């Protein structure tokens, strides 16, 4: 098993005819993801390397049975593309686009919460279930199938930690990038719950960063609802307050949202926090060794 994407995923890409959309969409297909359609308004009837392109997501769903959408459209059109996918009945929307206005995301998030569609991202690297499906921009060749569920707010940091884990012989059930924006579709808690329920996942690694309170809330949640071991990493111990560190979400004001406060909240609830990516893998190896 795995979470969110697998061999049952039928992917439609909004923005498949664009440079980034076609590059990553085709990469995902080469990995084995069932890429069934692309959507670009006005380009219906064309194809990208044999993948049919439709004018609307509704048409793509009706014609191909797509159940997962990946959004690769520019920021000013992305909120609309997410809403369109949800309206067409897509169960899972993965939004890679970075730089979407936060008020757009407030409306989208509030609307999606009232329906069945789950959103991952925006401003995220997507989801990889090694050996099954890749939806997004995660370089799949670093990762193999295994029992670690990895959830992260950052892209390259995920690769770094995933690689450290791989060097100690760990593979992954799924890797989920939830994104670095202040308003993301899914938070740590929801993905951790999926890993808790997934039989393949035996260990959960969460990779957070400064800003917001998601890590603190995850700490509370893990203590009450999760019996699988969780190891955490928090980036941004040396970030100065009030400065945005690249991710729109990674800004700290006051003591709230600092890396120190997050690490302490997690440790208080029994979640071990690695101080470097290497240490995360060492802790994971220690836990795995103890449970075998």
């Amino acid at each position: 098993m795995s979470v969110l994407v697998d061999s049952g995923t039928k992917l439609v890409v909004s923005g498949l005819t664009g440079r980034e959309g076609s590059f990553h969409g085709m990469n995902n297909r080469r990995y084995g993801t069932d890429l069934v359609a692309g959507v670009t308004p006005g380009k219906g009837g064309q194809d990208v390397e044999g993948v049919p392109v439709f004018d609307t997501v509704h048409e793509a769903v009706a014609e191909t049975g797509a159940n997962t959408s990946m959004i690769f459209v520019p920021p000013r059109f992305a909120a609309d593309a997410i809403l369109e996918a949800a309206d067409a009945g897509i169960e899972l929307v993965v939004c890679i686009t970075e730089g979407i206005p936060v008020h757009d995301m407030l409306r989208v998030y509030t609307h999606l919460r009232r329906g069945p569609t789950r959103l991952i991202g925006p401003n995220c690297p997507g989801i990889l279930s090694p050996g099954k499906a890749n939806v997004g921009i995660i370089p799949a060749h670093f990762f193999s199938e295994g029992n670690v569920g990895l959830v992260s707010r950052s892209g390259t940091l995920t690769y770094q930690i995933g690689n450290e884990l791989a060097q100690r012989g760990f593979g992954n059930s799924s890797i989920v990038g939830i994104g670095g924006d202040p308003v993301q579709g899914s938070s740590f808690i929801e993905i951790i719950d999926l890993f808790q329920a997934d039989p393949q996942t035996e260990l959960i690694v969460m990779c957070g960063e400064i800003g917001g309170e998601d890590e603190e809330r995850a700490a509370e949640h893990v203590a009450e609802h999760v019996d699988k071991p969780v190891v955490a990493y928090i980036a941004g111990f040396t970030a100065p307050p009030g400065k945005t560190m690249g991710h729109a979400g990674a800004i700290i004001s006051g003591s709230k949202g600092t890396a120190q406060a997050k690490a302490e909240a997690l440790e208080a609830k029994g979640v071990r926090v690695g101080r470097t990516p290497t240490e995360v893998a060492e802790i994971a190896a220690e836990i795995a060794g103890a449970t075998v």
Partner: protein
Amino acid sequence: MDLLEYQGKQLFRAHGVPVPDGRPAATVEEAVEAADELGYPVVVKAQVLIGGRGKAGGIKVAGDRSEVEAHAGAILGMDIRGLTVHELYVERASEIAEEYYAAILLDRTAKKPMAMLSRMGGMDVEEIAATDPNAIVRIHVDPLLGFSDFHGRRLAFEAGIAGDVVRPVSVVLAKLYEAFAEEDAVLVEVNPLLVTADREVVALDAKVTVDGNALYRHPDTATFRDVSAEDPQERMAKERGLTFVKLDGDIGILGNGAGLVMSTLDVVAQAGGHPANFLDAGGGSKAEAIVDAVEVILSNRNVRAVLFNIFGGITRCDEVARGLVTAFGQLDVKVPFVVRLDGTNDEEGRRILAEANLPNVTVEKTMDGAAARVVELARSAEAVS
């Protein structure tokens, strides 16, 4: 993007939030002219993006022209907590009867807008929260439904403000919400929200932060960006499309991806070093971007050593290596570099660096090893100088 008080008030006016009459001024002459137009007494206010202006002597009441001259002369050029005052706002003075606090902001945890009101305005909001947490009433607003009259009434009644201004304060709150939503703001704060001696409700201050990602919808607000107030190195980086934050250490840092760069700063700090900057070269960094990045990093004279930490996903390590070789060819590089390349095309990248045989470049295999090495190099450079 944070706005200056007078810029925030410009947005307030556009949405019907009452503010005292006022004019911006960049010189003493302009301040006097503004005061003459407005009529005395006026308040001369420093326009800087930092709190505590009043305590620092950046806000003064002037009863006549000579007082405006004196205050404007003293405040222009004044240093307020590290920021130099380049602009003033001259405003009609108000007679204060009550001071409240009002704000609309994005609550990240709830992922909803939040409206706040307190009858204890005029002081630091953190101070109010510490003195009497119940004195600040907070409610969430559904972004799809917007601000309803009942939100305003609830805030006003629960905050316990004077009965005769419940209605006008509720109206101001609704207009502040309108400004928040329509201007793509993430924070709209008024402290104090004033009740004048004539029982009029006016916003005496304006602290507005707008979403930089939404500036394309607000071309007028986009012109508020004050490039002269930006750090020259940060401006240089921005012009080249790099995400850069200046820090106060001596080790230049370059990485790809915000999370990895933050993590790199932490690992360097744990190894005993002090990062000089945060620089995210971004995904898919091409050779030219690397040349630009090296130039930005080295423009900081405090830098004694530089660490490149790349985990290639979309970014290809061979491109990064080529960029570094080009940079060494174009720039006069005097400080040592430590380079760690992992991920996509890492072997090719290391081969390129080995062949180029650049002076002062050490290649390390791991992030921890690279951090330890760069800290050592920065220390020995410090010992020499």
